């Protein structure tokens, strides 16, 4: 192991010295003028359109109607993992200690999103929301519950809104998993969730 450590250190010093020698004079880091991206649009409408564009479905409902809605949308789902307090559904208990491999046959996962981005339909979901990091990916279908007053205009705004978070793991999810790797034919449902439903409350 000693030999490896020495080698690693050499790599580091060699790289840093070579950069120092070869880099140009310091160029300024630009200030970002966010006003240049301002748009007077209906955030909610554009967000909804973009969710549809990226292959998801979206519905505005009352919090108390969530359970019934999910039952209607996924009548055959029996293995349900839920991490949201906004619904009482859920047949599988999830905790920080759950082995992600045990979630292999989950039909449906229900998680809360923290923030929606109107320009691209992306929703910020953290490890805090999903408890088990693998959950929103390994599930067959995914429901994200999002409060409709938590939609911002674009990614720059999004990053200032999540700036103060606990940084462990977080993901912007925009639609269900998809691929166009076979002759450019878009197929929804690659390795992650086969479908995404966003419930706006």
């Amino acid at each position, binding site marked *: *192991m000693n030999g*490896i450590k020495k*080698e690693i*250190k*050499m*790599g580091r010093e060699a*790289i*840093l010295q*070579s*950069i*120092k020698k*070869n*880099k*140009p*004079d*310091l*160029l300024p880091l*630009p200030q*970002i003028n966010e006003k*240049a*991206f*301002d748009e007077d649009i209906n955030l909610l409408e554009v967000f909804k359109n973009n969710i549809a564009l990226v292959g998801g479905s979206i519905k505005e409902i009352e919090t108390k109607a969530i359970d019934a809605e999910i039952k209607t949308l996924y009548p055959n789902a029996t293995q349900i993992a839920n991490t949201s307090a906004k619904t009482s559904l859920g047949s599988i208990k999830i905790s*920080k200690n759950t082995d*992600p*491999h045990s979630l*292999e046959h989950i039909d449906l996962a229900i998680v809360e999103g923290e923030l929606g*981005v109107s320009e691209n*339909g*992306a929703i910020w979901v953290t490890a805090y929301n999903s408890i088990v*990091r693998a959950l929103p*990916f*390994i599930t067959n279908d995914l429901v994200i519950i999002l409060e409709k007053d938590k939609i911002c205009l*674009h*990614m*720059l*705004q999004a*990053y*200032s809104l999540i*700036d103060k978070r606990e*940084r462990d*793991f*977080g*993901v*912007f*999810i*925009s639609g269900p*998993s*998809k*691929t*166009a*790797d*076979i*002759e*450019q*034919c878009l*197929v929804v*449902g*690659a*390795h*992650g969730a086969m479908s995404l439903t966003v419930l706006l409350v």
Partner: protein
Amino acid sequence: MNHAEKAEVFNKDEAKVNWHDKALWYVREKRDTSAHKVQGWEYLRELGSSIKANVLSNLDEYLIQFETNAKKNGVHVHWASNAEEHNNIINSILEKHQAKKVVKSKSMLTEECHLNPFLEKKGIEVIDTDLGERIVQLAEEPPSHIVLPAIHKTKEEVDVLFQEHLNTKPSQGNPEYLVSEARKHLRDKFLKADVAITGVNFAIANTGGFVVCTNEGNADMGVHLSKVHIACMGIEKIIPQEKHLGVFLRLLARSATGQPITTYSSHFNKPDDGKEMHIVIVDNGRTEQLSREDFRASLHCIRCGACMNTCPIYRRSGGHSYDYAIPGPIGSILSPGKDMKKHSSLPFASTLCGSCSNVCPVKINIHEQLYKWRQVIVKEQKQPVVKKSILKVAGVVLSKPSLYGLAGKSARFALKHFPRFMIYNKLNAWGKARDLPEVKNENFDEWYKKRNKNG
């Protein structure tokens, strides 16, 4: 074989070339539609370019800052000067964990370092999990595009490949069926993997975190199911602050495929409890490229592939004709810096139309760099005798108007009256695979003067 010779091979199947050309142009059109929807798009490109220019001018400091912050988060940071060191570091991590099964999501860097064959020789199973990458891995081919690795394959070819390797039923290339079978096949690999290797789209100096973008969810399936995550990044992947992701994530997917953002943009900061996270920071020729003032900006690249989709040469010659991990216009300015002899034909695989520079989200002056590489290569590399002598003659002829007039006259005479074999031969590259236009009796100058007299 040089680029032109390899392109000739690709062009043997005309229908396929036409499909390839159109499919990529369609992606370019989707990029346009998507970009035009963004308020302040050009300003966004400007920002992308100047943030990257700042990064290169302060790269050592940003890397140290990134390392410090990543270590604070419990991430192991490794440095590799070249491909060999990179591969050895990964192997030592695998050995430490006695790992035998590795799942890998898309990483052009590991492609560049030839990691797969290195690990396979050591008896380790390495599975590429991006569908396109898996297809080319099964076909034992390199990717032909950095975003669409199997764009050169027809669905029927994929069908046959899957029948052979995944025991699928013949489906005449039904994409839904083939994807669902690949999902099953790869899910099994994810569940059994010991270690997940991913690339890095952006590494953030002020947080020590990094972002990986996929549409399929393969990076996350791999990482969250295995006990060790190894992320490999070139030194140029650094951005100063997390808020700059707000610029680059707006640019990346729109430029790549026309999507407003990839399905998953995963932000890794800390390993999950009981797991390990490693980052390997790789030079492999990048600091040398940094020293070349004319070619330095090629390190701005965020690997979107827009320059490939728009390039009239790439679209008609295919990614394999470039014979380099990164094909297309950007590959043609990166590769000569790595091995000028091997890749000397690539800067000539361009019409210099500038379309690549026009679509580049970080405003790399790709076509200008192609032109500059040509000048370097012509000086440093032995040129073919025919080309050299013809250019020498052309230089003399073009500098003397009377000689030019005479040459034109003779050429017009020759094209009209000489037998075919004297015109269509090795000396005339313009007559290869096409007929020269019908010639007039006079040149433009004569025609213009006459026209003035008459007018």
